[in-house]
């Protein structure tokens, strides 16, 4: 189902735990890495691979916010909205990104490249406001820095 490297990775992950099911969170990241989001096929395959029922995988996927069951942009622009970022202007950053990319919050640009998202506390409160692009943190951002970050990805 996945690349050889990723299949090996799954085999290795299974050695970490006494039960296979424990590997479901790390394996779901692999699925997203391969397909951009968690597909129906991924859910079925992971269930088989980890001796789980399909609904058990599904209930995990839908509980955790870092997984998506629908296609998302290649770059997830995640603006932290929680208190420390809020009082230092997070909302203006989000609005700026939406305007710049001509998209609504949670929507993906028509070229499939960007999804603008508001997320809860990212643990960078002392470096607020923070933007996370996929897994990369950008700290103490303002609209000018956000422009630069996005322009480099276009």
């Amino acid at each position, binding site marked *: 189902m996945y690349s050889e490297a990723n299949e090996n990775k799954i085999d290795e992950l299974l050695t*970490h*735990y*006494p*039960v296979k*099911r*424990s*590997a*479901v*969170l*790390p394996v*779901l*990241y692999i699925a997203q890495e391969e397909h951009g989001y968690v597909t129906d096929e991924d859910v079925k395959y992971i269930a088989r691979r*980890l001796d*789980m029922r399909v609904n*058990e995988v599904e*209930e*995990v996927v839908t*509980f*955790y*916010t*870092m*997984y998506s069951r629908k296609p998302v942009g290649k770059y997830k622009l995640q603006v932290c*909205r*929680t*208190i*420390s970022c*809020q*009082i*230092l202007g997070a909302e203006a950053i989000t609005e700026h990104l939406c305007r710049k990319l001509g998209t609504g919050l949670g929507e993906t640009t028509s070229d499939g490249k960007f999804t603008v998202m508001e*997320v*809860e*506390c*990212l*643990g*960078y*409160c*002392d*470096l*607020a406001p923070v933007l*996370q692009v996929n*897994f*990369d*943190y950008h700290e103490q951002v303002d609209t000018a820095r956000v422009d630069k970050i996005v322009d480099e990805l276009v």
Partner: protein
Amino acid sequence: MTKVLTTRFDLKGEACDIDVYIKTGGYAALEKAFREMTPEAVIEEVKKSALRGRGGAGFPTGMKWSFVPKESKRPKYVVCNADESEPGTGKDRDLMRWDPHMLIEGMLITAYALNARDSYIYIRGEYWYIKEILERAIAQAYERGYLGKNVLGSGREFNLYVHPGAGAYICGEETALLESLEGKRGHPRLKPPFPAVVGLYGGPTVVNNVETLAAVPWIISNGGDAYRALGTEKSGGTKLFTVSGHIVRPGNYEVPMGYPMSKLIYEDCGGIRNGKKLKAVIPGGSSVPIITAEEVEKCGLDYESVAAVGSMLGSGGVIVMDETVDIFETTRNLTHFYHHESCGWCTPCREGTRWLQKVFERMHRYEGRPGDVELLHELADKILGKSFCPLGDAAAMPVQSAIDKFREDFDRRIKHDLVQIKMHAAD
């Protein structure tokens, strides 16, 4: 001031390399524990240190460890809670990215004391790059024989794995974390039995915060009494505080327990930005009651002193707000957070946070009805102490304390009858 946790922060990541870590005194505590101390002596030393859980609850660490039964049919586990998601807190992030081996060493000493073979670091998924830092450090520790079979000639095996979460605040609650680690939704478990008796995969398990475990090597090297002496009688040692918000120099600061909060804010952090005045502080992460600028003046940074002004030390996330902040808006922000993060398991929290948010939203539009402020207070009261896990309390306390101390910011949101009449007339 003696530093326990941040001695290698100035190296800005160089200590991720095991050679640098060892050269700066690393793994000496592990050698000492393994060669000179019995597991019981390690636990005794931690008890003497008065170290308390740094994740938020502040439970005495040595006591938590002593609840683990000596004999167990099922394997025992040590789990590090690195799910750092409490708004206002970013301390474990720096501990792990700048000194990962200190955490590994602390966990190994803990695993030795409790006779556990396998340990896990449960880290929030967003900290993916820190997960990779930890994995590289762990690989080095295996190479040097600090992990693996027959560690330091003890004849015992120790393994350590990093496990990513995936964006769920609730997984910072220790039993929800264990559920998540077992590959399920992060729903909290009923306590008792406590994890120390029935934890991961049904085995006795100690779950400790990153900062708690990172303090263990220093305690073993220097003794529990020396650690305790750094702080106050009841709150031993030092603590890492994340200072955020309207502050000149935000960041992570390690200070002794009992350190004056005003000194931290006005001296270490350089005071309030842009010459503004302080309005309020949330002293221990978003879940604890808010305090006023006057209360900051008399508040010390230890569990007892913060409790004396009606709040809690919590995770040590100090959120500083200047006079321009509308406390209604910051409280609405937090209510949105708790509603979003409520796991849905129990009714008071799931429904209560939803109702709170509804009332907040209409007040946000300046459409609050007379009695809405009282309604918020009452709704919070219906959650407080009635939810399955502390997330409900964490949602309720900020609301009640904000209303009690900054009532005027809430009253402004109530639409008065005269305005209502005018608006109806305009319809």
